[in-house]
């Protein structure tokens, strides 16, 4: 029996989520990393709370970027190791569809989880609660874009020695615009100026990436699996 | 020329001359590196050919 694309999408997404929740500790690790890295900055810099507030958007975003990178490695790795990835590629469903399903599931357990945890971190960094909404919206769009950039990078570096380092080397330069606009949006929200411009730009980056990245990531997988 | 003379570059000598020196280094490195790359590639090709030729001889024995 053949399966339509929408059904295939949900099947793969459900599978990814089931597999992720089977090992809840694995899900918590990037979040804990996020918390730890955020703590490092105030500890290392020994700032007064008021100065910490000025730095907080940048610190928050850098920590979010780095912890997202940690979980990206797992996107294709286990499926590549046991041959499931090749089976999926041969299944006849478009590779772009498969990649979209996997990336969306990945974002739900990493990016969305990060957004949920962000208010806690924000309190630690002395970000006023008036900025929380903007911060969470910007983080949601930013982590989604990052998941897609990471999908391309992960597709290119499956199975390489030191693939982790190479993945960061590839993804971080592409993610720099995200950092700039995401931190700017949060910064403006803290200063209670309109963050609309930065948020629109972030949304544009998000839409641009979500539209084109599936094809790039599928091409990357095709290169690796050949 | 401004009152600083050619080598003084109007007072900006320590910015202007390092820039041109750096450009010279970049040009020189590119030429040297490319020549070295080509020489290494030719050497490897010659070695591969020599190995293939000697293997051919062994098969004839």
């Amino acid at each position, binding site marked *: 029996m053949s399966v339509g694309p929408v059904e295939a999408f949900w099947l793969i997404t459900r599978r990814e989520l089931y597999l992720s929740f089977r090992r809840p500790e694995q899900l918590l690790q990037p979040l804990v990393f996020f918390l730890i890295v955020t703590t490092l900055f105030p500890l290392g810099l020994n700032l007064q709370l008021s100065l910490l507030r000025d730095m907080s958007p940048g610190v928050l975003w850098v920590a979010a970027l780095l912890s997202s990178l940690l979980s990206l490695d797992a996107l294709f790795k286990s499926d590549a190791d046991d041959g499931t990835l090749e089976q999926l590629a041969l299944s006849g469903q478009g590779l772009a569809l498969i990649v979209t399903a996997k990336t969306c599931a990945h974002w739900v357990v990493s990016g969305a989880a990060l957004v949920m945890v962000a208010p806690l971190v924000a309190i630690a960094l002395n970000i006023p609660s008036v900025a929380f909404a903007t911060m969470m919206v910007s983080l949601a769009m930013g982590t989604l874009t990052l998941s897609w950039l990471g999908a391309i990078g992960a597709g290119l570096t499956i199975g390489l020695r030191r693939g982790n380092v190479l993945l960061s*080397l590839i993804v971080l330069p592409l993610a720099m615009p995200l950092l700039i606009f995401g931190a700017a949006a949060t910064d403006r929200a803290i200063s209670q100026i309109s963050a609309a411009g930065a948020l629109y730009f972030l949304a544009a980056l998000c839409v641009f990436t979500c539209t084109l990245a599936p094809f790039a990531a599928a091409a990357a997988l095709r290169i690796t699996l050949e | 020329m401004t009152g600083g003379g050619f080598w003084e570059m109007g007072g900006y000598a320590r910015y202007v001359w390092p820039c041109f020196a750096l450009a010279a280094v*970049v*040009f020189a490195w590119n030429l040297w590196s490319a020549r070295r790359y080509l020489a290494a590639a030719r050497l490897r090709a010659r070695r591969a050919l020599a190995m293939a030729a000697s293997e051919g001889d062994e098969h004839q024995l």
Partner: protein
Amino acid sequence: MWTWFYKLASPPYVYSSAAALAPWFLGLAALTVGYGVIDGLAFAPPDYQQGDAFRIIYVHAPGAWMSTFIYTTMAVAGAIGLIWRIKMGHAVAAACAPIGASFTILALATGSLWGKPMWGTYWAWDPRLTSELILLFLYVGVLSLRSAFEDAARGDRASALLAIVGVVNVPIIHYSVVWWNSLHQAATVAKLGKPSIDAAMLWPLLSMFLGCMLFFGAVLCLRLQGEVLNRERQASWVRQAVKS
């Protein structure tokens, strides 16, 4: 007409053409760069605002142009290799990467040295400088990715894809001074209509642009010969080519 295009896909043709063209490119580059440097340093009048410091433009602007031009060339060549499976495309892309990275470093360093007397700082996180720095990281990524693969063909294809994904940065670099309030000055030469720079300053600058393009051609031909040899070691035409 298309036979010319098909010839470009042929390794022996590419190798012999590159070998023949390289000395010509190099000779012409020496003449144009030589004229540009001498005229720019000694004979162009000093700038009304910047004095003699403006002469840095003669190495900074061509360097910056080459950094983006070479990246675009690398991305296009990689795309040709990826889409039409023409190996010579990958050879060109591989040859471009180190050359482009060196010009990016030149642009960043000379820009920094120019920034200190003009803006009072060696660095600023403004859009053009930041996106040029990202370009350098992209070059490093492409070089690292290619060398991480044991299968050279797969490495070629992976770094071609990365180069294509990163080409989005190139229009950002060019238009950053238009889209944002940037410290960096807007385009003086590449505007439609009259360039906003004096003729006596313009000629050596144009000569430097041309000279750097010719120099790139020469170095590309040299590296391309090496890339072709590395990819075609087993082929029969190689025997004749490396005999000398």
